[in-house]
């Protein structure tokens, strides 16, 4: 089959690889009908996340049709022919974390849990196409994929919604939604969202759905800010505006009640000296992540507010404003998305027309043109917001 493979730093190729096979009794094989490139794939491709190996298949946002099920799949829970969306975190459904609906902290699904335990203190779940730190599972930017523990890790789509309407249930829609959900939004809240990429856009939509009165989008790409403005968001372009002053101005000096970091470890910054500082520390490996957004969100947030982090961080950060966080009673909430927790309710919202996930799609390419898609998305060319690939 054809698959999008990582072949080295900033290098992606579509290669011919063997077809997937059942390795565990509760596996299923899915013939992929739609798959997408995620912002976090960019962190993998450019080498910020360690433990990638040449030849790894990328992709953790995919859906398709079940073509084979393992002997351990519970009777009738999943059948050949079912149309499914696959959540990116592999969850066993049986461990204490899964029982607490903390699916991305699943204690059983990562065969390389020992490595993630070393880095993070405790192990984290397996993820498709997301380095060997998360298990070394083949990804879904391919013609076929193996779905692990498939009876708990595949959402059946039984209505006639299109692929594009449901594909993002695999990751970015629930991730954006969780960003807003963790904010515990009250009627009348002002919510600021750093990053107007796909996850940021969905965080803005979700904040609105959850009752925010004003949503502020912060980015430097005008086309992305325009997308947010089209949804009724107020926008701040950090390249020509000081973000903190603008936020104070927009909130009558209070600061946003809730702040969402939808950027993560590769933040860029308007002030070049701060950016240079973090780049230099990153280069000598004394800091792995550039936490500019996190710092700014903490400094900007209203006292007693919530800073919700859904942008990906991988290692160590520097100059964390612990004083602001502590003295102003801020709540910091975060997590890789517990996708399985949100899939059903969000599917219902899509069916009801309350959220339209297709609005962010700007590029549709055949799988064979995945490298072009990566270039467009990475370099933000041609107003690229989201690339969907079809095998």
């Amino acid at each position, binding site marked *: 089959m054809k698959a999008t493979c990582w072949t080295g730093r900033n290098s992606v190729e579509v290669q011919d690889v*063997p077809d997937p096979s059942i390795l565990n009794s509760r596996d299923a094989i899915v013939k992929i009908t739609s798959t997408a490139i995620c912002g976090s794939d960019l962190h993998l491709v450019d080498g910020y996340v360690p433990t990638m190996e040449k030849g790894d298949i990328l992709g953790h946002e995919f859906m398709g049709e079940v073509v084979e099920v393992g002997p351990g799949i519970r009777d009738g829970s999943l059948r050949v022919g079912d149309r499914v969306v696959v959540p990116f975190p592999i969850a066993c459904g049986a461990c204490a974390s899964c029982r607490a609906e903390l699916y991305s902290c699943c204690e059983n699904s990562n065969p390389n*849990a020992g490595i993630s335990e070393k880095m993070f203190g405790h192990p984290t779940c397996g993820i498709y196409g997301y380095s060997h730190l998360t298990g070394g*599972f083949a990804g879904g930017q391919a013609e076929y994929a193996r779905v692990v523990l498939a009876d708990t890790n595949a959402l059946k789509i039984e209505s006639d919604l299109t692929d594009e309407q449901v594909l993002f249930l695999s990751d970015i829609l629930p991730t954006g939604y969780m960003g807003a959900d963790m904010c515990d939004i009250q009627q009348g809240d002002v919510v600021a969202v750093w990053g107007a990429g796909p996850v940021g856009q969905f965080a803005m939509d979700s904040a609105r759905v959850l009752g925010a009165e004003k949503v502020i989008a912060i980015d430097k790409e005008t086309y992305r800010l325009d997308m947010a403005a089209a949804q009724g968001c107020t926008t701040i372009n950090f390249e020509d505006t000081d973000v903190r002053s603008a936020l104070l101005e927009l909130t009558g000096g209070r600061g946003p009640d809730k702040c969402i970091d939808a950027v993560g470890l590769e933040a860029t910054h308007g002030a070049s000296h701060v950016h240079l500082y973090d780049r230099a520390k990153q280069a000598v490996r004394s800091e792995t992540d550039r936490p500019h957004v996190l710092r700014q969100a903490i400094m900007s947030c209203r006292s007693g507010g919530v800073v919700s982090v859904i942008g990906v961080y991988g290692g160590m950060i520097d100059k964390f404003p612990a004083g602001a966080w502590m003295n102003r009673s801020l709540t910091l909430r975060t997590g890789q998305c517990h996708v399985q927790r949100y899939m059903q309710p969000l599917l219902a919202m899509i069916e009801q027309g309350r959220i339209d996930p297709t609005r962010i799609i700007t590029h549709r390419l055949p799988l064979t043109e995945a490298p072009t898609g990566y270039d467009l998305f990475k370099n933000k060319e041609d107003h690229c917001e989201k690339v969907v690939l079809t095998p």
Partner: protein
Amino acid sequence: MTTDTRSTSSRLRHDPLVRGLGWASALLGVPQVAAPAGFARALGVGDAPRHRSATTAVGVRELAAATGLLGRPHPAWLWGRVGGDLMDLTMLARALKNHDGRGLGRTVAAAAAVTALTATDVYAAVTRTRRSTPMELTAATTVTRSPDEAYTLWRDVERLPEFMVHLDEVHVTGPRTSHWRVGAPFGKTVEWDAEITQEVPGQLVAWRSVEGADIANSGEARFVPAPGGQGTEIRVSLRYELPGGAAGKAAARWFGEEPHQQLDDDLRRFKQIAEIGEVVRSEGAPGGKRARGEFPQHPARPLTEDELKEALS
């Protein structure tokens, strides 16, 4: 790792050579201390005051060695005897050099006897200094199963190789006995018989290798209900008596640089089996429990048929 003095001590206590040397020390020490002048004369070295006091000192040393070897035997006492022998030989050599001829034959005989004794002491010290270094590993995990379920799974010793990376095979040979086989480096295998030494259903199972195992080992697993009805906390400790010398070094290398990590991984897989029924495999780590030895891993892409056969074998 520390030297295990207690087991060494009990081993030496019943060692005829060690006991023999202990009694030899006693038999020499008593007349040396009680009648130093007579003893010195008997050796043909004269009974000048310095000879008498030297003899007394040697006697005290011998009695100390006797007490040690017979009371709290340790290889250090044997090495002490070797040191004493060398002292004695030095003194006898000086005596021979400055000899006035009276009783020369007796002095020569004494020197010969001490030389023979030195050889015996060196032999005993070298062979009895077998540095057995115990390695103790502990790890804990919590599973969402009742103590009874977790215990029952662990007590099914034939399933231990499913999650314990070094074990190739365990088969039950009796109600409390089983035969264990592990793969060692260079395709060698090490086998031993093990017996359950203690079992309290739902709480505790302890086992140890029976006499004669190449690497004596023991272990126990304890099962305690986790707070808040979260399942069961399992604490496992393993103890291996690693032999000294090259064999011990090889064994240590076989355990890897991080034996604790290996036991952690073993428990992680036990948890997988307890909670989801099998060990999870990825394309990068298709070998299940062998995953840790697979670095750098297979790329995260499907395996070829040959790779698949090998991984699932």
